[in-house]
């Protein structure tokens, strides 16, 4: 596959390159340099051979072979090749045509890859778990600096207004107030997507939603700052508002006057295959409208940022952000300082679910006011402010037409979508793509067309929430499949099974699927839930439903165009035997730190407890793009593996040289490195580290990951193509109280193809959390607004996130397909499992009460109303 060559973007590890480049000063160093050069040459040779072997023999993306290097000239008798067929073969996904294992030479991966996993695949407590449990973990708002000021934001009470005048003099005069700023102070526009930068830290001349930041105050304490806000006088010229998709399309009132396409942020249309002809020929067609309600993340930690400048004009900013790197870039631009002067650190992080994946007003304001006052400034949002900062799920109006043959084979889909995006762009361009491109998974769909319009409205901006952009169309599609099944007289599960794609599938829109456990996942939930035993046999008011989905493992492209790695991980192996892992990735509670420690420990032959993870600090850690789009395990994991392998090879090489035996014959048993054929020839593991350091210099390696070049035939390169896809099947069992309209979701079975479950307990937790969040969106949660643009429920009392009493029993199964390109075969688990949950509940509710919900949330009043309507409809149908 073409992807293989791209994987060489992972810097070919050259064991001796660094010392070889240095000027040797002593005999020992000369010797070391010579050794290193020899190793480098060997590595290159092996690399070429391995790559050749891979391209010739491996159809399913033997990414491991492609990054091979640094193998010795000796024939392939590496432990992995002998004992475990080969690492690569061990990573075969079920169903992929088994490739003959490359036997020509052991790759670096093969040499470094342990024969039996000590750590991978076994549940491990998080490296940063206990601090969160015993109260010692420091989150951003737990931090304090000497002379620190507290900032507070004045927000617009109007949904759409021109700022005529702001008078801050009275606020400035309040004792204890040190700084008051308005939009004019920080006028540079920013935005997470380079082509759609339409935000300023504080509104410049216009406000565009209730809650839009207008001014910011820094004071000695929070109460003074709060009181100062009341003294700021803002004169607004109130403008007519755009509160609906229809109003936005009409375009009488413009929210961003300079936007060339009116209130349309983005419209994308793509078409694949002969949609119209296939739909016309379809024996059964479903055509319907669907609506997915907006909702929001509600991380329990509210946004917080703490800024401090040093005497040389360097900014340090601690922030609860999922994207330290992007934040660093935007801060530098907006503050007018070089990026080299900006350090962003993400401390312990109280969750985001996508809600902290872009720069926010508070980060710029804290930084700006800290510079202006010469004192550290901290801003922490209140819970209410988080509801205004939002960036949650876009409300989506959808229409689709889906065709099938009489036997249930899907033919084509026509899909239209309008996204109610709020006052600013946020990730909206990406959201637009994500509503369209995933229709070709996980079912074989020979043709489809989609047309999505993302609109500006006078509401808090929508953005990425778990399952970004894919949740809404999946809701429509999975319900449409049930409607189709009903028309066909087929069981909904049968209809799905009939259309599943297989491993290695290439979609009509050019997505290359590698591993795929869709069928296995489906079988698992059907069996575990006893779906067929229950279907049609449950008592009145009880129902069972099914839904499936697919999701990405990171995007093929970074957010700003560049050819650099998406992820770099540096690993330093200390003489003490302790490895320090430096990664720019952000552990946002999903467990990326333990993932890093496990991968590195496994490969280096040390314990997780011997690994220290330094994460998300732009001064210390190499760039990673951030924790979004389910990219971290796949991309950062691969980079970490790559770095660890380089060091492991050095350990093996140094040991082999010391024992004067071939490197392939070194094995580690416990704390010893020894010659396989004569175990009396051995050195302690620690000695191997010292030998390696003596030979190669400091044991530091940098591993990188960059996705293979994925589909570029179409526009929107970054949205959709992914190095791997995950697959999820769910069954839900519900009972509906037909008198109150209350839906009780009793149980959800979820089987998720996560590749390899590196850390099962963490994978399970990600799946459970995803299902929980989808359940909340199905039954309870809605972010809605009054006509004047005010959010109706800006508190946890009124915004109904489920409590422990409301949450269903969640039965989790992971399907381990072992992706050929994932680290140890791993894929994502943090977002994909949410996709089927809302539709699976809707489908089960239909089974229970015969009412087809095509919108959410299914609150009791809505359900009751629909039940009353059902009686009428049924009577009509019978008449």
């Amino acid at each position, binding site marked *: 596959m073409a992807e293989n060559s791209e994987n060489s973007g992972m810097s070919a590890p050259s064991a001796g390159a660094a010392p070889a480049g240095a000027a040797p000063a002593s005999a020992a160093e000369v010797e070391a340099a010579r050794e290193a050069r020899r190793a480098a040459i060997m590595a290159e040779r092996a690399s070429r051979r391995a790559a050749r072997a891979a391209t010739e023999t491996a159809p399913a993306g033997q990414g491991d072979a492609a990054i091979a290097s640094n193998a010795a000239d000796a024939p392939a008798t590496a432990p992995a090749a002998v004992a475990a067929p080969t690492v690569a073969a061990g990573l075969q996904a079920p169903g992929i045509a088994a490739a003959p294992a490359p036997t020509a030479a052991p790759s670096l991966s093969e040499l470094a890859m342990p024969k039996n996993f000590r750590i991978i695949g076994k549940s491990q407590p998080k490296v940063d778990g*206990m601090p969160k449990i015993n109260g*010692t973990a*420091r*989150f951003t708002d*737990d931090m304090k600096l000497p002379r620190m000021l507290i900032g507070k934001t004045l927000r617009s009470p109007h949904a759409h207004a021109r700022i005529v005048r702001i008078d801050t003099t009275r606020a400035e005069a309040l004792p204890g107030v040190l700084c008051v700023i308005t939009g004019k102070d920080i006028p540079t526009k920013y935005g997470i997507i380079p082509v759609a930068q339409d935000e300023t830290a504080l509104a410049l001349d216009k406000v565009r939603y209730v809650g839009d930041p207008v001014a910011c105050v820094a004071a000695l304490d929070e109460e003074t700052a709060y009181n100062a806000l009341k003294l700021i006088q803002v004169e607004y010229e109130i403008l007519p508002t755009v509160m609906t998709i229809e109003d936005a399309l009409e375009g009488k009132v413009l929210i961003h006057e300079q936007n060339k396409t009116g209130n349309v942020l983005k419209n994308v249309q793509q078409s694949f295959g002969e949609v119209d002809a296939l739909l016309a020929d379809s024996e059964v067609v479903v055509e319907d409208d669907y609506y997915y309600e907006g909702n929001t993340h509600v991380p329990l930690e509210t946004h917080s940022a703490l800024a401090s400048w040093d005497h040389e004009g360097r900014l340090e900013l601690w922030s609860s952000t999922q994207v330290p790197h992007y934040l660093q870039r935007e801060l530098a631009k907006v503050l007018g300082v070089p990026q080299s002067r900006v350090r962003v650190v993400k401390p312990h992080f109280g969750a985001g679910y996508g809600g902290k994946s872009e720069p926010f007003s508070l980060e710029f304001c804290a930084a700006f006011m800290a510079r202006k006052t010469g004192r550290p400034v901290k801003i922490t949002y209140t819970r209410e402010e988080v509801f205004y900062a939002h960036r949650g799920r876009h409300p989506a109006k959808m229409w689709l037409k889906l065709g099938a043959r009489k036997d249930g084979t899907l033919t084509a889909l026509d899909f239209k979508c309008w996204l109610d995006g709020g006052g600013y762009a946020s990730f909206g361009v990406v959201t637009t793509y994500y509503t369209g491109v995933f229709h070709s998974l996980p079912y074989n769909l020979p043709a489809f067309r989609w047309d999505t319009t993302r609109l500006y409205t006078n509401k808090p901006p929508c953005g990425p929430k778990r399952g970004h952009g894919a949740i809404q169309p999946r809701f429509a599609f999975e319900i449409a499949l049930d409607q189709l099944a009903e028309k066909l007289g087929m069981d909904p599960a049968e209809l799905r099974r009939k259309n599943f794609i297989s491993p290695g599938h290439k979609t009509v829109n050019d997505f290359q699927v590698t591993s795929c456990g869709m069928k296995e996942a489906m079988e698992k939930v059907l069996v575990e839930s006893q779906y067929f035993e229950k279907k049609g046999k449950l008592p009145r008011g009880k129902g069972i439903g099914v839904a499936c989905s697919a999701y990405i493992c990171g995007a093929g492209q970074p957010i700003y165009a560049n050819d650099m790695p998406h992820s770099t991980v540096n690993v330093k192996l200390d003489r003490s035997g302790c490895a320090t892992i430096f990664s720019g990735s952000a552990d946002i509670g999903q467990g990326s730190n333990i993932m890093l420690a496990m991968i590195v420990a496994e490969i280096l032959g040390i314990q997780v407890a011997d690994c220290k993870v330094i994460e998300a600090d732009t001064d210390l850690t190499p760039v990673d793009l951030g924790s979004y789009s389910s990219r971290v395990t796949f991309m950062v994991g691969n980079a970490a593996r790559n770095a660890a392998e380089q060091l492991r090879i050095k350990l093996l090489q140094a040991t082999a040289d010391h024992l004067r035996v071939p490197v392939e014959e070194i*094995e580690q048993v416990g704390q010893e490195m020894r010659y396989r054929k004569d175990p009396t020839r051995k050195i302690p593991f620690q000695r191997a580290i010292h030998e390696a350091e003596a030979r190669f210099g400091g044991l530091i390696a940098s591993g990188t990951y960059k996705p293979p070049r994925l589909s570029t035939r179409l526009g929107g390169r970054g949205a959709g193509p992914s190095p791997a896809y995950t697959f999820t099947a769910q069954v839900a069992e519900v009972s509906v109280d037909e008198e109150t309209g209350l839906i009780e979701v009793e149980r959800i079975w979820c089987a998720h193809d996560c590749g390899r479950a590196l850390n099962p307990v963490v994978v399970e937790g990600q799946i*459970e959390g995803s299902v929980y969040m989808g359940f909340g969106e199905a039954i309870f949660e809605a972010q809605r607004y009054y006509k004047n643009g005010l959010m109706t429920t800006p508190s946890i009392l009124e915004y109904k996130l489920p409590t422990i009493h409301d949450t269903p029993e969640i039965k989790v199964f992971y399907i381990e397909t072992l992706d050929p390109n994932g680290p140890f075969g791993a894929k994502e688990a943090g977002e994909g499992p949410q996709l089927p949950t809302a539709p699976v509940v809707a489908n089960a509710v239909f089974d229970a009460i015969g009412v087809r919900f095509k919108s959410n949330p299914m609150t009791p009043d809505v359900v009751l109303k629909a039940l009353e309507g059902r009686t009428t409809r049924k009577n009509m149908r019978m008449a």
Partner: protein
Amino acid sequence: MQKVLIPLEINGETVEVAVRPHQTLLDTLRDSLDLTGTKHGCDIGDCGTCTVQLDGIPTLSCLTLAMDVIGRQITTVEGVAQDGVPHALQVAFDQQGAAQCGYCTPGFIISGVALLKANPSPTLEEIQHALSGNLCRCTGYTKIIAAVQQASQMLQQAGTGAAAPSGASTGTPHAAAHPSTAQEV
């Protein structure tokens, strides 16, 4: 308003702290005493992240005035471990992966420890009831319930057997949690 110096009994120690009359216990713990293990999530009593124990009873520190709890025994998450040994529930939370982002965790620990003290072998319903004032947004509560169940078992074993809860008695939780490590590579 002028500050008043008051004594508070926190985690078994008497501390003197200067508070202003309108300071909540949460403000006092976090801002005055640097006991930042107690978190704030909503500030108006809806989420449970700020839960501490007052005389053993889970209490929202965001809705409790510092000056109103003089003489009461206050336990924060920092005071749950004894002599550096984590409580069985903390060990279980770690092993079960019950803390994801960890922000709600101190509140759950406080509620869970109070439950286990009053009722060492709670049923599922009793666990759900005791934790129904604490919101978690990451876990779907599944692993949290599992952790309370595991801790209950650990405590019972400790009660019936000779030893303290496994892991809790033998040093760091990680020593107990990590599988044996001297395996072949």
